[in-house]
């Protein structure tokens, strides 16, 4: 007797409220791979210098 295949494409809602594993979202293995990359991608996060932020705030106050 042939075994039935367990579906793996049940929609799952991710943190952004998007449906996963549907035609309008990434597939599970793609999300898992992206999750693997995330720690490395997070290490690239940078901030602008304080001087730039101060300049922006000063510009705003000058208007």
């Amino acid at each position: 007797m042939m075994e039935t295949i367990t579906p793996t494409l049940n929609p799952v809602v991710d943190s952004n409220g998007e449906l996963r594993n549907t035609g309008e979202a990434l597939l599970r293995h793609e999300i898992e791979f992206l999750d693997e990359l995330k720690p490395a991608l997070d290490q690239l996060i940078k901030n602008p210098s304080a001087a730039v932020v101060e300049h922006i705030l000063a510009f705003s106050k000058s208007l």
Partner: protein
Amino acid sequence: MSFQEKTDQELVHLYIQGNEASLSELINRHQSRIYTSIYLLVKDEYLAEDIFQDTFIKVIRTLKAGKYNEEGKFLPWVLRIGHNLVIDHFRKEKRNPTITNSDGFDIFDVLGIHDESMEEKMVKQQTHDDLKKLIHYLPSEQKEVLIMRHYGELSFKDIAELTNVSINTALGRMRYALNNLRKMMTNKEQLLKA
């Protein structure tokens, strides 16, 4: 309620009413995502700071002119302005943006293991070097979607609107980016020798 507890929309309202401190909170809240998204596309800290500043100057002028569309979210709106300024820059420069950095910061430092052996260090270093090169192979539109999705935490609907493509196209570009990265990581020896 403190500024930190207010929504972006509430802060925008306060700013429009003349509360300058609310702008400071908005910048503080989103500067990392906005700056990193710009920086990874232009690959230059000084240029990224210029574009970041120009982005907020446009934001400020739009808000103070009462032209802000409250139906949209604040962050995607600011990212769209920044994205357009990056495009303007490359149109002027006529060169292609890349995701990798030039200031020595290593995307794969996070993969480091404490108390690793010399061999492990060498393997790790080689992996870092290889992957940095592999990312260069991603087409710019795929890198762009990866950046917007990860750093901007944008939905594919937002990315589609930002890049003037359909949701399916934005999603497809992300899939290609991930699949290409995975394939390149698998076949990196042949690829890097070519």
